[in-house]
């Protein structure tokens, strides 16, 4: 067995993903019971969620709006009329013995998720489309936990609305699959469709993986990998599965059609059920729920409130703001970050400041935020624009700007206020700078002699002393120029 790269010269992986996305509604898909994370077990329930005799579902239209946003953002065909179907299986976390889902009439079909990739080391941006087979609405199940010989059921999550987003087998590497997941994650967060918190299970992924010899048209036998719930696991689990299948095929064996469960801690997958055991879900239209209709007013509302999507935004940041792909990718990863930069650029009224403001965000703001959302920053986009404007107009140096920023973060005061109060204005007056330089020269005769004897690297030493003497306020460019002139003895 050789390494994956060599294997992939011969074998082509074919991957499709099914991603379950928890919709950010306040109540459940088919009842008024609240949604939430971390509440006491079985506290977020009602007769409908518990599947009590006589209880009925009534659809939460908020879930429809959120799903439609995703449908429109992915350019999907939206059905004006679709149906819910019952999917039957027995499991303790499934209260009714069936899940309300959609089967032959999904809400959305034939969309695509755009994934932006850097086209090589310095090449242009590339937009890649991952085609979607369908997006449908369904309800989540609860959660079983096992304690020795007994098991407990928590139905807080049962009935939470989900979108299932199913791709065509359009992905051909584990890295592409992970990149698609990131793009989808970014998209749903942009749209406000989901909080997408993977640790809370708000985004969960199953992967269908097969391999075939490059050049072959026919698809190989696929396996379904379940329970891959982080970007890293998506990549690792799929890489592992590609390797496993290639090994079987190279040994002359046949891949078995089965469902496998990814064990993240062991880094391996285990068979869960074989084809023979694949359940007959006995789908049929749910007679408790009339067909779901999407009217023009709903569609208009969804379309007119659609935000700029991540892929076009990234492209714009590179094109208009002159950011590198990586910086643009970081700043468009979260809609709030990108909105912050856009707001700062608007406040500055000067597109040329976009780049220094972006680098301030990347180097300073994100560091002090330390993972907290940017909404918690006491430094507003307007305040950042003012600060960077002071640097651009030579009022303060870039170095001082960092101190001013720290002070802004701590006090919430405006940059100009801090600069005036603390006397941080950059010294750019030539006479003042000249007398400071002359003083340094007078104080360091030995070093002056060495410099004049040819050790020109000492220039930094002299400039540094001026900076120190001026508490960093001396204009570094002017000081360097002046010092050079004075040392040359003119």
């Amino acid at each position: 067995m050789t390494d994956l790269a060599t294997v992939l010269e011969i074998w082509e992986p074919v991957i499709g993903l099914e991603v379950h996305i928890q919709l950010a509604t306040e109540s459940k898909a088919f009842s008024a019971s609240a949604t939430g994370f971390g509440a006491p077990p079985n506290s977020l329930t009602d007769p409908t969620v518990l599947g009590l005799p006589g209880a009925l579902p009534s659809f939460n239209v908020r879930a429809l709006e959120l799903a439609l946003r995703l449908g429109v953002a992915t350019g999907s065909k939206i059905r004006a009329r679709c149906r819910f179907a019952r999917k039957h299986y027995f499991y303790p976390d499934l209260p009714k013995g069936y899940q309300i889902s959609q089967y032959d009439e999904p809400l959305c079909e034939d969309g695509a998720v755009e994934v932006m990739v850097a086209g090589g080391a310095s090449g242009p941006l590339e937009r890649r489309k991952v085609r979607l087979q369908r997006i449908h609405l369904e309800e989540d199940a609860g959660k079983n936990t096992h304690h020795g010989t007994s098991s407990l059921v928590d139905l807080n999550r049962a009935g939470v609305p989900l979108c299932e987003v199913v791709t065509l087998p359009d992905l051909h590497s584990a890295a592409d699959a992970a990149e698609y997941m990131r793009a989808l994650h970014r998209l749903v967060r942009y749209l406000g469709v989901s909080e997408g918190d993977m640790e809370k299970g708000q985004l969960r992924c199953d992967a269908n993986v097969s391999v075939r010899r490059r050049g072959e048209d026919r698809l190989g036998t696929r396996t379904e990998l379940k329970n891959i719930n982080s970007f890293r696991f998506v990549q690792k689990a799929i890489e592992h599965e590609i390797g496993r299948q290639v090994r079987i095929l190279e040994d002359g064996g046949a891949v078995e059609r089965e469902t496998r469960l990814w064990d993240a801690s062991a880094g391996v997958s285990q068979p869960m059920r074989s084809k023979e055991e694949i359940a007959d879900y006995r789908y049929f239209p749910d007679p408790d729920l009339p067909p779901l209709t999407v009217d023009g007013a709903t569609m208009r509302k969804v379309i007119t409130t659609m935000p700029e999507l991540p892929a076009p935004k990234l492209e714009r940041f590179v094109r208009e703001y002159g950011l590198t792909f990586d910086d643009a990718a970081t700043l468009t990863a979260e809609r709030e970050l990108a909105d912050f930069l856009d707001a700062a650029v608007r406040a500055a009224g000067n597109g040329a400041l976009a780049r220094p403001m972006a680098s301030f965000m990347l180097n300073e703001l994100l560091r002090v935020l330390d993972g907290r959302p940017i909404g918690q920053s006491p430094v507003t986009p307007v305040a950042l624009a003012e600060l960077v404007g002071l640097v651009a107009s030579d009022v303060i140096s870039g170095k001082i700007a960092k101190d001013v920023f720290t002070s802004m973060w701590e006090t919430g005061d405006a940059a100009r206020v801090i600069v005036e109060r603390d006397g941080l204005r950059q010294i750019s007056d030539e006479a003042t700078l000249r007398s400071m330089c002359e003083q340094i020269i007078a104080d360091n005769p030995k070093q002056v002699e060495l410099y004049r004897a040819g050790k020109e690297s000492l220039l930094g030493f002299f400039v540094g002393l001026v900076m120190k003497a001026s508490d960093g306020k001396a204009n570094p460019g002017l000081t360097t120029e002046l010092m050079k002139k004075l040392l040359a003895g003119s």
Partner: protein
Amino acid sequence: MSDELAFAGVVELARRVRAKEVSAREVADAFLSRIDAHDGALGTYLVVDHDGARAQADAVDAAIAGGADPGPLAGVAMAVKDVIVTEGLVTTAASKILAGWVPPYDATAVARLRAAGAVILGKLNCDEFAMGSSNERSAWKPCRNPWDRDRVPGGSSGGSAAAVAAGLAAASLGTDTGGSIRQPAAFCGVVGFKPTYGRVSRWGAIAFASSLDQIGPLARSVGDAARVLEVIAGLDPRDSTSIDQPAPALEAALAAGVAGLKVGLPREYFEGSIDAEVAAAVHAAGAALVAAGAELCEVSLPHTRYALPAYYVIAPAEAASNLARYDGVRFGHRATARELGDMYATTRAEGFGPEVKRRIMIGTYALRAGYYDAYYKKAQQVRALIKRDFDQAFELVDVILAPTTPTPAFAIGEKATPLDMYQTDVFTLACNLAGIPGLAVPVGAATSGLPIGAQLLGRPLDEATVVRAGAVIEAAFGTKRPPAGGAA
């Protein structure tokens, strides 16, 4: 005194209670003592809520004393079929799998009864999960026909019909999936009203077949049934299939008469194995309508004979799905077992009776992958044809008059095979498949003394016309009491 109250009827009881001629408590006590005295022999009740009923009655009396409007059903002592959930009162759907289950909520229909001042006496016997036509499929005990205790009261709402006939409730709620209100009403000589599908919220009605189930009243008169239906009808956001229409003004229709009304007799209902006395009684009801100014004609419902096979695909398929929730995990019976799969299998094997299991098997079979088109989908197509039959008939007539059952009440144990039993619903199923309203009214008795029923079928949401015709027939035939008020 107590017997007089027991047969006074809903409208009259509410009038007397509102007029303070009698207290709600006296009414409740009268019914409770009759139940205690006579129900042992009849088996109409599964639970009698003595304390709860008295407390509700006292609350009605207190409201009246305080000058508040006690509602249109003030002090009316009613009872509810055991497939309709009642907060705090054991509800089992007459099944062992729900033994001892106490619902934490009221069905919408029950909540509306309470809000209107009705007093709930208890829960009424029925076939397990409403699956049956004789009440012989109750997991708990048989229910007997007050006219002849060797005969069935009909089903599945057998207890609901027998209790009203025997004066053990002024009126009751039943459910009708394929005739389960109308057929027992006919067998017990009372009025049974299956409203348009969606007219009454199904919230709290333990589902048998969701696209067919409908709650409705059983009562001693058309006026009583109309009063109850007006109270329970109307939109309920908790049932997505409930119709956004105001409750129909039915009491206003009672005295409207049938002058000029076109009444259709469906040819197909008189062609098969219908008892001659039943056919004659229905024709007599038609004559009564003509005498009151209606015009009678024959209509055709050509797909009638496909109603039974279509029903026995659709209803079991939905039932198999609806009954998946009885798994022993969250409520009701749970068998002891070592493994999860065993727990499911044993719980359901022990908890469900044979008829319920049969329908789960049929329904599961019909929904198997690859068979959906051949069975469920085909049956739905047949259903559309049956609906079209009615649409076309209602272009010619305003209301359809038909027999409710092929024969009067049959003997306990008489229907030996499931198919024999299914055949007894042959006249009632189409109404559910079409989703239209159906009102069963007594049309006299056979020479055996057993009651005979006719049903009036109307356009969707046109309960009012059905009530007009029902009131005229009732005036001609009346509602009779069983021998010794069923207490013999």
